[in-house]
C-alpha cells in the first residue's frame, strides 16, 4: 500500500533526479517521463543518477511536451499505464513535475492518503460557474480547434481562432463529458485512474481532447467527474500563477513560509534553491504534524505581489511606476488641503490651523521666492528643499513627493495668484485635494502694501486675471477635488460657519465647535481701497461687493461675531 509518483521533467534534470531518488529510497515507485527536447546526453545522465533503483521506470518513447498541447496529457497517460501495470501495490498516483518539491515526509503523505483511500485530489471546476483561468478563454477551449502552437505560431493560432469565431465553426463536446478545468497537478486513486484508462470510450475522448486548448488542465479534470466516487476539488500541490499566467517561484527565503504551510508539495522551486532542497528532502519524523494543508499565508503573499504589479502604490511615481495621465490609481498618496485667501484674510492662519487640526501646515508652497515649508524649514521630508528653481523644474513632482514622503500626516498649504499656477490643474483633478478659495483676498495685503497707486492697480489687475483663470479651472466639469469658492465679501459675512465646514472635513470634531478662532486681518478702509481701484478704472469683481464705507464708526480690531463665537 503506497503512493506512486509520475514525474514529468524537461529542465533542471539534476533536481528532478534528486527528488526521484528521494521518493524511490522512501519506497515509492516513480515513473519518469522526460521531454523529447531533453538531449540524449542529459537524458543518459538522468538515467545514471537513478541507476540501481528498482522502483524507478522511464516512459518510452519520449514525447514532445510543448506547453498547452496534448503531449503532456499523452505522456501522463503512458506513465500512468506503466505505473498501474508494474506496481500493483500503488493505491494513489501523484502527478508531479521536475520543479516540484515535497514539503512533508512521504510517510505523512501515505498516512494522509491511507485515511482517504477512495478520494481523488484534483482541482476540477465547472466552466459554467467560475472563471478559473487567468484571461484565457474558458468555454472556447472546448468548442474550437487548436491545431497551431500558441508559442511558436502565435499569429496562425490567433487567426484560426478568429476564423472559427467568425464562421461559428464549433465542435461538439462528446457526450457525456461536462467540461471542467483545474490545476494540472493531481493525485488520483488507483480505482479512478484505472477507470479513466480503461474507459471503452477513451479513444473517442482522447481524439476530442487532442484538439482542446491546454488539455492538461481539462482532460483528467473533466473525466474524473465521470468515474470518481469522491472528488476532493483541490490540488495537494501548492502552485500559484501571477497575473500573466506564469507560475510563482519559491526561493531559499521562503523556507519558513513553506514549512508552516503544511502543504505536501510545492512548485515551482528555483533549481538553485539549495537550502530548500536540503531542508525538505528528508523524511525526518520530527517534522511530522499530520496537519491539514494551510496555504493561506502563501496565497496572501502572492496575492499582494499580484496587486502590487497591477495596481501599485497610489501616489507613487518611481522608476518602475510612471502612470500615464488618469491611469494613476491615486494621483497623490493621501488627502491634503489647499487654502486660498485664508492666509491673507486671517493673521497667522497657518499657526492657528496647525494648532487646531494637528496637521502639517505650510505657507505658500509655490511662492515665487521659495517653497515656504512649515516652520520655515529649508529642507523637508525626503530631503525636499525650499529652492524655488528645483520646485518649479517639476512642480507636480514636488507635490506628489511631499504627499508621498509624509504619508500618514495630512498636509495643508496656502495657495494664491502670486504663486506658480502650474500644479493647479493637477490638484483640481485629484480627488485627494480639498481646495477652499476666498476669491479676491489677495487684495488685503495689497491694500497695506503701500505701493504707489498706479503699480497697485496693475498688480491688482494681474492677480485678478490669474485668479479668474484659476476659478474657471476649478469650476470645470472634470474637476475631482473637493472645491469650495466664496467671494471675500461673502466669506466675511459669516466666516466661522464657512471655516467650520472646511475643518469638519479634515478634523472630525464630532459636532464640537472650535474653541479658538483665528484673528481676522484689519479691514479698516478696505472697502474704500477697493472703491478707489474701481474709480481708477479697474473692473474689480472677484472680492465681491464691499460697501465703500464698510465700518463708518471706525475700524474694529476684531469682528464682533468672532468674539461671540469664541465664548
Amino acid at each position, binding site marked *: 500500500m503506497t503512493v506512486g509518483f509520475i514525474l514529468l521533467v524537461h529542465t533542471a534534470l539534476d533536481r528532478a533526479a534528486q527528488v526521484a531518488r528521494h521518493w524511490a529510497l522512501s519506497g515509492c515507485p516513480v515513473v519518469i517521463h522526460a521531454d523529447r527536447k531533453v538531449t540524449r546526453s542529459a537524458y543518459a545522465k538522468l538515467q545514471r543518477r537513478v541507476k540501481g533503483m528498482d522502483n524507478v521506470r522511464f516512459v518510452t518513447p519520449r514525447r514532445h511536451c510543448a506547453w498547452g498541447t496534448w503531449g503532456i496529457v499523452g505522456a501522463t497517460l503512458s506513465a500512468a499505464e506503466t505505473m498501474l501495470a508494474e506496481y500493483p501495490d500503488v493505491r494513489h498516483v501523484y502527478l508531479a513535475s521536475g520543479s516540484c518539491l515535497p514539503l512533508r515526509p512521504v510517510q505523512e503523505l501515505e498516512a494522509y492518503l491511507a485515511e482517504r483511500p477512495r478520494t481523488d485530489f484534483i482541482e476540477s471546476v465547472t466552466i459554467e460557474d467560475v472563471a478559473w483561468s487567468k484571461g484565457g478563454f474558458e468555454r472556447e477551449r472546448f468548442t474550437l480547434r487548436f491545431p497551431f502552437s500558441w508559442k511558436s505560431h502565435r499569429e496562425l493560432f490567433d487567426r484560426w481562432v478568429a476564423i472559427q469565431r467568425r464562421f461559428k465553426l464549433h465542435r461538439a463536446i462528446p457526450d457525456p463529458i461536462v467540461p471542467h478545468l483545474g490545476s494540472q497537478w493531481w493525485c488520483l486513486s488507483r480505482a479512478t485512474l484505472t477507470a479513466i484508462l480503461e474507459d471503452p470510450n477513451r479513444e473517442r475522448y482522447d481524439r476530442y481532447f487532442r484538439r482542446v486548448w491546454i488539455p492538461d488542465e481539462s482532460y483528467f479534470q473533466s473525466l474524473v467527474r465521470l468515474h470518481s466516487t469522491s472528488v476532493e476539488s483541490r490540488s495537494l500541490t501548492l502552485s500559484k500563477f*501571477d*497575473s*500573466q499566467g*506564469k507560475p*510563482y*517561484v519559491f*526561493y*531559499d*527565503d521562503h523556507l519558513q513560509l513553506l514549512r508552516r504551510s503544511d502543504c505536501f508539495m510545492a512548485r515551482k522551486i*528555483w533549481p*538553485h534553491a539549495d537550502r530548500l532542497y536540503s531542508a525538505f528532502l528528508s523524511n525526518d519524523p520530527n517534522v511530522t504534524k499530520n496537519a491539514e494543508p494551510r496555504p493561506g499565508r502563501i496565497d496572501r*503573499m*502572492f496575492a*499582494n*505581489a*499580484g496587486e*502590487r*504589479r*497591477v*495596481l*501599485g*502604490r497610489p501616489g*507613487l*511615481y*518611481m*522608476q*518602475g*511606476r*510612471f*502612470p*500615464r495621465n488618469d*491611469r*494613476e*490609481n491615486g494621483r497623490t498618496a493621501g488627502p491634503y488641503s489647499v487654502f486660498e485667501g485664508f492666509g491673507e484674510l486671517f493673521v497667522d492662519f497657518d499657526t492657528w490651523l496647525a494648532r487646531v487640526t494637528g496637521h502639517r501646515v505650510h505657507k505658500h508652497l509655490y511662492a515665487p521666492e521659495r517653497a515656504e515649508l512649515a516652520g520655515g524649514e529649508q*529642507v*523637508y*521630508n*525626503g*530631503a*525636499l*528643499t525650499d*529652492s524655488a*528653481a*528645483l520646485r518649479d*523644474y*517639476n512642480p507636480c*513632482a*514636488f507635490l506628489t*513627493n511631499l504627499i*508621498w*514622503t509624509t504619508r500618514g500626516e495630512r498636509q495643508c498649504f496656502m495657495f494664491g495668484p502670486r504663486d506658480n499656477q502650474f500644479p493647479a490643474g493637477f490638484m483640481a483633478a485629484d480627488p485627494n485635494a480639498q481646495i477652499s478659495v476666498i476669491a479676491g483676498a489677495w487684495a488685503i495685503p495689497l491694500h497695506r502694501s503701500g505701493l504707489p497707486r498706479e503699480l497697485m492697480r496693475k498688480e491688482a489687475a494681474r492677480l485678478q486675471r490669474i485668479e479668474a483663470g484659476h476659478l474657471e479651472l476649478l469650476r470645470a466639469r472634470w474637476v475631482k477635488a473637493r472645491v469650495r469658492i466664496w467671494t471675500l465679501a461673502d466669506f466675511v459675512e459669516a466666516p466661522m460657519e464657512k471655516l467650520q465646514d472646511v475643518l469638519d472635513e479634515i478634523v472630525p470634531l464630532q459636532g464640537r465647535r472650535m474653541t479658538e478662532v483665528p484673528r481676522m486681518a484689519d479691514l479698516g478702509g478696505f472697502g474704500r481701497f477697493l472703491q478707489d481701484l474701481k474709480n481708477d478704472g479697474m473692473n474689480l469683481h472677484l472680492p465681491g461687493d464691499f460697501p465703500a464705507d464698510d465700518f463708518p464708526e471706525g475700524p474694529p480690531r476684531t469682528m464682533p461675531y468672532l468674539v461671540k463665537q469664541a465664548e
Partner: protein
Amino acid sequence: MSALDSYRMRLKRKKYRIRAFRKRRELKVVADRTGAIKRGHLLAFTTLRNERVRLPYFLDYYRKAGVRHFFMVDNASDDGSREYLADQEDVSLWTTEASYRRARFGVDWLNWLALRHAHGHWALTVDVDEFLVYPFCDTRPINALTDWLDGSGLRSFSAMLLDMYPKGPIDAQTYAEGQDPFEIASWFDSGNYMISRNDRFQNLWIQGGPRARAFFADAPTNAPSLNKIPLVKWDRAYCYVNSTHMLLPRGLNLTYDEEGGEKTCGALLHAKFLNTFIDKTEEEITRREHFAGSREYLAYHAVLKEQPDLWTKWSEQYINWRQLEILGLISKGNWA
C-alpha cells in the same frame, strides 16, 4: 511612433554599432580570459581610470552576487589598476590611451565588447562605484533575478542611481582598500526625485537627489540623470545610447508600468562621494573628458571649495533593500 521614426531609430542603432566596431581598434588586450565563459554566465562590463583603491571591494561584491566574468576597459590608469586587474582570474582586461570623451564616455568600447562576447548572456554594465541592490538581494543571487526575468519574458532591468554620501565633509573619512564604501557614505535622499518621460527613446528621465539639491539647485536642467538600465539580456543587435541611461531598440527602455502597476526594479548605490571624489574632481576639470565639458565637475568644484556637507536631518541612513522598497525607490513588482 511613425514608421519613419522607427526607421530613424534603426539607423541610429546601426550607426552606434558601426561606431563601436570602429572603436574596437582603440582597445589593446591585456588579458583575454573569455574562453572560460560558459553558457548562462552572468557578465559584467566596466570602464575605469585610476580606481585601484576601489577595485578589491568592487570585484568581491559582484563575485558574491553571482557575476562570473568581468570585462574591463582601463582608460590609461597610472595607479596600478591595470596590473591589479590583469592578475584576476575572472577578469578580461583591455587598455586604451584614447579619448574617453570621443568614445562617448566609454560607451563605444563597452558596446563593442558586449557585441563580441555578451550575446545570449545577461550583461551587467556598471562603474566601479556603482553597487546593484534589488529585491531580495540579501537572500537571492542575481541569477535568481535573471532566471525570473527570463521566465517572465523580460529583457532588461532598471536600477536608478542612488547617490550615497557621508555625514560631515566628504573628505573627513578616508576610504581604505577593501572597505565597504557604505560604511562611510551611508546616507541618501529618499524622496526628492523628479521624473519625466523621454518620448524619443521611451525611457524615463530621473533627476534629483543630493547632487541636484547641492550642486544644481539653480540650474536643475543640468542635474545629472539618475535613470539607469544596467542589466540586460544581451543580443548582438543591442546597444547603449548614452551611458547606461538608455538603449536601442527602444523597447528595452520600457522598464516601467504606465497603467498604475509597479514593475520590479532595483537601485545602483552610488559610492561617488568618498574622499577620493575631491582628487577626481580636480583631475576631471583639467582633463575635460566628461559629459558637456565636464560641467558636472565644474559645478562640484565650485561648491566643494566650501567643504559642503551633503547631509541633512532628513537624510536616510541605508539599512537594506526592504527600506528602499518601503520608501518607494525600488519595487518588488510581482516577484515574491
